[in-house]
């Protein structure tokens, strides 16, 4: 099947792969500065003038975090089915196929192994452009497998989230992916391997309410929308204006929900440092209870 080849084809970044306005020159949506598109891309999709973080294509994200030439693809071998025969204004299989063609991957997630600042990791990046980064059976399974394989291979897990939540078109099975990903993370917990969750814009719904917020350490990018219910839903429910900066990462940091808000350019260094710090503990302070259990088992 050609699914993996799509990724290997290494398509040039297309203009719709991020949320920055198209064109050679663009006006920054945050500071109105005229920026040369190439400068924005070279600056990891962060406005060189004001530091506004644009959404970032998945491949660029991998490039940003993985040490050069170390990323090896794990995901791509799973194809979603249509368990409900779901049709809205379009049939789900058609919607899927269009997204697969457009974005060059079988579903809304990418995973693989890499060195990240020298640390051995499993790296998972969600693709918001693919059906809103929604989590159906394939996304859930890829994340679960990445967590389990990371545990087997003694790697830390790093997930960069970007998702509108559970995928409606797979109904309750999508909902169940929240539990699936959560239980799969237990393999890492048992192996005392760190899981770092990096919340990028936007992370909402069932993804926020499952693996995304279960990281041993949770970082978010500046200005990222992170929520359970979306702002529009809340506004419709309570019928009043939402506070300034509501559900943005800085706000959530203040509320105690995040470990830190980390600018994109510092992300790799900070993640690698945390993994290094967390992993050094096991050697320095061995867990005697665990040793005792193991000895008893032998």
């Amino acid at each position, binding site marked *: 099947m050609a699914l993996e080849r799509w990724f290997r084809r290494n398509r040039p970044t297309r203009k719709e792969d991020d949320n920055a306005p198209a064109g050679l020159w663009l006006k920054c949506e945050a500071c109105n500065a005229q920026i040369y598109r190439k400068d924005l891309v070279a600056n990891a999709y962060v406005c060189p003038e004001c530091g506004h973080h644009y959404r970032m294509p998945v491949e660029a994200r991998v490039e940003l975090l993985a040490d050069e030439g170390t990323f090896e693809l794990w995901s791509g071998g799973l194809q979603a089915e249509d368990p409900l025969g779901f049709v*809205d204004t379009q049939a789900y299989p058609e919607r899927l196929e269009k997204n697969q063609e457009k974005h060059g991957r079988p579903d809304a997630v990418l995973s693989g192994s890499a060195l990240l600042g020298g640390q051995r990791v499993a790296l998972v990046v969600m693709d918001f452009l693919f059906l809103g980064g929604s989590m159906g059976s394939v996304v859930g399974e890829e994340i679960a497998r990445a967590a389990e394989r990371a545990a087997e291979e003694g790697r830390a897990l790093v997930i960069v989230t970007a998702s509108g939540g559970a995928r409606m078109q797979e109904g309750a099975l999508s909902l*169940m992916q929240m*539990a699936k990903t959560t239980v799969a993370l237990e393999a890492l917990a048992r192996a005392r391997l760190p899981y770092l969750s990096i919340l990028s814009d936007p992370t909402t719904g069932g993804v926020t309410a499952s693996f995304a917020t279960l990281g041993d350490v949770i970082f978010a990018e500046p200005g990222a929308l992170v*929520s359970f219910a979306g702002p529009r839903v809340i506004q419709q429910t309570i019928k009043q204006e939402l506070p300034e900066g509501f559900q943005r990462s800085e706000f959530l940091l203040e509320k105690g*929900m995040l470990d830190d808000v980390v600018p994109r350019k510092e992300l790799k260094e900070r993640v690698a440092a945390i993994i290094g710090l967390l992993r050094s503990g096991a050697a320095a302070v061995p867990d005697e209870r665990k040793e005792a259990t193991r000895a008893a088992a032998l």
Partner: protein
Amino acid sequence: MPLPFEKPIDDLEAKIEEMRAYAAEQDIDLTDEIGRLEQRLERLKRDTFDNLTRWQRVQVARAAGRPTAMDYLQGAFEGFNELHGDRTLGDDPAVVAGIGRLGERSVVVVGQQKGRDTKENIHRNFGMSHPSGYRKAMRMFDLADKFRLPVVTLIDTPGAYPGIAAEEQGQAWVIAESIRRMSRLTVPAVSVIIGEGGSGGALAVGVANRVLILENAIYSVISPESCAAILWRDAAEAEKAAEALRLTAYDLLDLGVVDRVVDEPIGGAHKDREETVRRVRDALLEEVASLIGMGSAALQEQRRRRFRDLGRFREVA
């Protein structure tokens, strides 16, 4: 207020009543006629309720008068002691929890509580919990684990509450944590979806070894109204969305999301609360008993496996 499709049933019931009254008043024997009408009523009820559309079942699942968690706590468990509070922020009335006996066995029960009238509905926030409610549930899971008591959860919520305070207090965080804590239980856990299983807010207390659902209850990733608003850009298309979402008891049994369907009395749970509570109690007794022999590791592993394996995809590489 009868549901729209209940009208012919209600009309026929009224007619039978009228005939009975007339027979008594006039002192004449209408037993045969009444008998025939009663048979017709039974057939009508069966035809109606066996052939409900998914949208109609959504309406039954939300019907006024349907037994709520409290009805089960009072009717299916003996000596129920409600325990309050999350030990952090407050006590969420949308979740009722405590300890009681199910038959001979002590169990910890967590129920999502809708109101039985408008006043209670406002008090219970229509069964939509804040983070505090999930924290209370997690406290109950810990209590059950420590004292080796089986856990029963009763699911009935439109969803976790989407409000400012709920978001500020980490609604998503507590749901994720509750899913994790429930999956880690080393005691038997049985969940029953008794009405509405609204998305993550329901799953947060639904990570059980056995997941049961009442015949006319629903369990969905999103409400039909919200789904319609997003995919059809019109909440009025909820009926279509309900069909597409496959959210009824037998749909979910086919998908492997639930393990068992508990039949409701003919005409729906709201027409015979006592009988419904009795049936749920019987099912719970059986299910808990079936899990009692299992060790803590086996219980954990069975529950983990049950959720780890859910999903449909094919391998193509």
